[in-house]
């Protein structure tokens, strides 16, 4: 057994007026009772900026060990290591009790924070003392979201021979990745690599694909969740639809296509895109004339299959039982119209990156030709094959990202996809001038930096300096930006501006987090159990997160994370148990376990 060490506990109180935080006085009160704790210090009365003061206190109290407790106590840790060194103590006896590390954030987590502090005081790693209880687990799994992360996680689990329900809100799986033209940095086409996976999901015997469905309610506990799923009326029978598309020809209602980022029109009866899985039509109730006002019904008459289209179909609710849930709900793009200075929505040829992805895609509005929008007879600005080719295109980074007025965080993918788009422009219009305006070029992944250099050599003008505004002048766009490295201010005339919009949590992220009982970070992304060693589990047992819903990431990182989430699930299926959250543990249990361990060690 280790020798007794007089311990000081320093509370690093960083609350700035927030009310719903862990109750530090209560923790201090609790910690005082632990033997060896000689003294409690508090950052409110004890400034950390004077190391000499701390040294005096350590010496006078004969302190041999210091525990720093708080949300991010590591920020002040080295002050104490130095003080310990100066006192001749072992600097390694400065131990952190980081509440946030284990998800203790709100007032309700005070007990958890107490346990974290207690473990640190006893010198026992929290993970070893706080071993979550287990429930017997149901072998089936629910995956929410059919983007690349959801697809990957589903396939991973289904390949292990276990049943997966994959619930997708829209009419097809594929998510945002299906909308991309090419993927960086290898430039292989997104559809080529994604569609085989989608087909595999569609045909996998262990996957029950539930497209056009939404999770409505979840009850039960880890290992045994009862999930209510709303099956929205599709009006087209999945089993009998032969995918001939005659209904589409006849349907009179035109609506902007979500898949094509509203650059093209689709009918009220539609297939989201040609390679959709399932490759069957559906009717969008919001726009169908028959569903809305009982007029029309042309599709029913046109359909060659008897009883395939049923416009009287109603939404249904089904209930399933699952042991584990993987949330892979993805993201939405930042609404560029919020940044008025760029004139998105006002100037037709200021487009978002996602719109441009569709424009360059061979199945997009112009069959892959890069054209400017033209005004049709009704006065709407549209992409058409007949449009003019732009001579100059600017790509503007960090739209809505790295900005305290919008999203503080970096969206991680925009630098690279902008470089990719620049390449596509250069490839299709070699004579055009392409400008990229960036702040910091974040080409961090495997092969990314090399890709950046390649694009630079292709003759793209890569300029350090965020564009401040876009105006219209003489029928062209006029953009103003500092060219920092050349000590110049650019007033560049361009034909088209592409806004590299950042990623944001989905609008229903809050509702989902409440429904599932998992927490979110300040930015709105779902919170992982441990930012270092466990980025897939959440604060609730049996619920994992994967992909961008945890935080922006590129495709390989999203895929890796999805597989990691699947690992958790497969493990739980193999062992037949589902781990509950550490938050369900009683303080006494953790404490006694920690004491037990400290005796052993």
């Amino acid at each position, binding site marked *: 057994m280790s020798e007794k060490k007089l311990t000081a506990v320093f509370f690093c109180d960083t609350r700035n007026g927030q009310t719903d935080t862990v109750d530090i006085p209560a923790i201090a009160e609790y910690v005082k009772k632990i033997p060896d704790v000689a003294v409690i210090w508090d950052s409110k009365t004890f400034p950390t900026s004077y190391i000499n003061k701390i040294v005096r206190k350590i010496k006078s109290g004969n302190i041999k060990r210091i525990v720093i407790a708080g949300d991010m106590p590591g920020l002040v840790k080295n002050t104490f290591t130095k003080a310990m060194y100066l006192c001749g103590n072992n600097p390694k006896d400065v131990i952190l009790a980081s509440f946030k590390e284990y998800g203790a954030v709100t007032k309700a987590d005070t007990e958890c924070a107490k346990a974290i502090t207690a473990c640190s005081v006893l010198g026992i790693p929290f993970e070893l003392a706080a071993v979550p209880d287990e429930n017997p687990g149901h072998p089936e799994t629910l995956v929410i979201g059919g983007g*690349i992360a959801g697809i990957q996680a589903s396939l991973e689990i289904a390949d292990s021979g276990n049943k997966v329900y994959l619930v997708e809100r829209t009419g097809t799986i594929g998510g945002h990745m299906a909308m991309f033209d090419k993927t960086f940095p290898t430039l292989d086409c997104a559809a080529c690599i994604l569609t085989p996976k989608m087909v595999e999901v569609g045909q996998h015997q262990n996957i029950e694909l539930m497209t056009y469905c939404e999770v409505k309610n979840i009850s039960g506990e880890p290992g045994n969740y009862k999930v209510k799923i709303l099956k929205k009326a599709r009006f087209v029978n999945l089993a009998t639809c032969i995918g001939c598309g005659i209904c589409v020809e006849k349907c009179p209602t035109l609506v902007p296509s979500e898949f094509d980022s509203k650059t093209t029109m689709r009918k009220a009866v539609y297939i989201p895109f040609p390679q959709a899985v399932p490759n069957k039509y559906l009717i969008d109730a919001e726009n169908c004339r028959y569903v809305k006002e009982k007029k029309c019904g042309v599709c029913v008459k046109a359909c060659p299959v008897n009883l395939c289209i049923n416009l009287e179909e109603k939404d249904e609710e089904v209930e399933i039982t699952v042991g584990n849930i993987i949330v892979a709900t993805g993201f939405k793009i930042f609404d560029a119209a919020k940044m008025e200075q760029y004139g998105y929505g006002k100037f037709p040829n200021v487009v978002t990156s996602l719109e441009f992805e569709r424009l360059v895609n061979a199945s997009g509005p112009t069959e892959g030709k890069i054209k400017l929008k033209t005004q049709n007879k009704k006065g709407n600005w549209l992409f058409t094959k007949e449009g003019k080719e732009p001579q100059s295109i600017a790509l503007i980074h960090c739209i809505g990202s790295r900005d305290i007025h919008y999203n503080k965080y970096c969206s991680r993918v925009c630098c690279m996809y902008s470089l990719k788009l620049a390449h596509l422009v250069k490839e299709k219009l070699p004579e055009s001038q392409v400008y990229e305006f960036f702040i910091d070029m974040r080409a961090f992944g*495997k092969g990314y930096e090399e890709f950046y250099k390649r694009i630079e050599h292709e003759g793209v003008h890569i300029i350090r300096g965020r564009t401040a505004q876009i105006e219209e002048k003489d029928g062209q766009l006029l953009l103003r930006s500092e060219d920092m490295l050349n000590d110049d201010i650019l007033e560049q005339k361009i034909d088209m501006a592409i806004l590299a919009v950042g990623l944001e949590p989905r609008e229903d992220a809050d509702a989902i987090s409440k429904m599932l009982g998992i927490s979110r970070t300040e930015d709105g992304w779902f919170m992982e159990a441990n930012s270092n060693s466990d980025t897939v589990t959440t604060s609730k047992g049996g619920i994992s997160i994967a992909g961008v819903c945890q935080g922006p990431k590129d495709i390989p*990182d999203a895929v890796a994370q999805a597989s990691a989430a699947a690992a958790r699930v497969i493990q739980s299926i193999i062992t037949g148990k589902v781990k509950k959250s550490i938050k369900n543990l009683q303080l006494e249990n953790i404490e006694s376990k920690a004491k037990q361990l400290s005796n052993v060690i």
Partner: protein
Amino acid sequence: MEEKRIGVYICWCGTNISLMVDVETVAKEMAKLPNVVISKDYKYVCSDPGQDIIIKDIKEHNLNRIVVASCSPRMHELTFRKTLVKAGLNPYYFEMANIREQDSWVHTDRVEATKKAKALIAAAINRVSFHEALDSRSVEINPATFIIGGGISGLSAALEIADSGKKVFLIERSGRMGGHVADFDLTFPYMYSAQQMITPLIQRVKSHQNIELFLNSEIKEIFGYIGNFESTIHSKDGKETAVKFGNVIIATGLKTFDPSNIENYGYGKLPDVITSFEFEKMLLNGIIKTKDGKEPKNIAIIHCVGSRNKNYHEYCSRTCCMTALKYANQIRCELPKANIFDIYADMRSFGKGCEEFYTLSSRRNIKFLMFDQENDLPKIVSANSGDNCDMLIEINEKLTGKTIEVPADMVILMVGMEARENAKEIAHAVGISMCGNSFYIERHPKLDPVATTTNGVYIAGGCQAPKEIPDSVAQAKAAAARILATIAKGSVEVEVTTACVNEDFCCGCQTCIKVCPYTAISFDAEKKVSVVNEVLCKGCGTCGSGCPTGAIKCKHFTDMQILSQIEGIMKISHLELQEA
């Protein structure tokens, strides 16, 4: 040889096909072709009644080959193969002719489209005669996993698998676990304790009943294929242990760049120019001091040392920017009055919480200077006595466009990451490939970042490319997921449509071995013939077209099948010519 009895079914697909192809005539004409017992047209062959007709006909007419002419095989090939299985036939006795996506939907001339349909169906009929029964094959999986490397990736993967109750052999070259993370004080961006994070992992691995740990150990070679590998572990004390396992995870990590040969930085010559890893040790020991024991007043941190520069490594090492910010914060704690200069190229704070950490750092009076990491490295020189500092860094600062002198008493070089010196040996031992800068290549850079082209061998963490802790852990667990899935199934399906060698024809030229992208073909020195390992073969057929003697047969895409298909196509066009 059994008699071929072929059934041909031509789909109307409502009007989708029938509008452009004269389905009925085609069905009649196809009936005249040799071996065709039945030729029918039907509105929706894929529908349940359509499939029932096929099943009924197989049974009634004793059919043993089926051709369906309808949509793309990508749509319904699987559907009809299942129909054949239901009727008791081998699913590979089936062939599809695509007369919708590649005929009726793309042509406007009904006569021509009908002709084309005939040609395609005739080709399919010709081909199907040569189809052979293929049985799905699977190999059993040894549930043990072999993990090379005891860093954060190796530990995470080991625990993930072992916690599922499966055996893990974990080998580590050095005498301790934890890898680089065990040398860190704090982690970015939340400044959690790295020690407190890695210790429980190590303790759990040590005491886990399913993990067999081999410290100070190495391997020379791994033999076998997915599910059935074997190897011998050589321990430094001379002990040898033979192990058998089903899957391998390589998590050998990376090593730090040696900055000695960057002249400008004077590493090794100037005593207080140190690497980030040397500085990390100072932090752990609680005191930052120069070589002569003084407390530095000016500390400079230089980013991208050995990274993003074609003289050293072109790639970005991904973690250094944030580590540098972490150091800057730590220095601020220990030396509240010191001047901290952070000399960077692009601040790559892309991870969750990282941009916020950058903002927070900028509030702690840290001076950021931008340099050109590619063409214009700063120069560190000893200062003169009047300069009030030990060294001076001369830097062409990009954001001001001025040449600036930065005083420094200590310079921390943020050294990049590079592949381990023995990366090649390990790659060779396991049979995986490396990219130009000696990191291991994943099977697919996007959709399969953990698997390799060798089935059953996975890579995780820094050995694939530099990465930070959360991404390494995620990758390690992803590899674990893949392995757990195969173990859970107990066996793994292997490609049926593989290549095989007819030993009588093989002349032993080994051309096939050179062209195979999966190292699935080896040479049997005794018999002097090539041997295909069907477990590794993915059926691309490249060897088949390379083989000069026709000894290699690509199952389901045999020469005979394709040649007959060509004949079938041309037969119809001959008939047409004769008619004309």
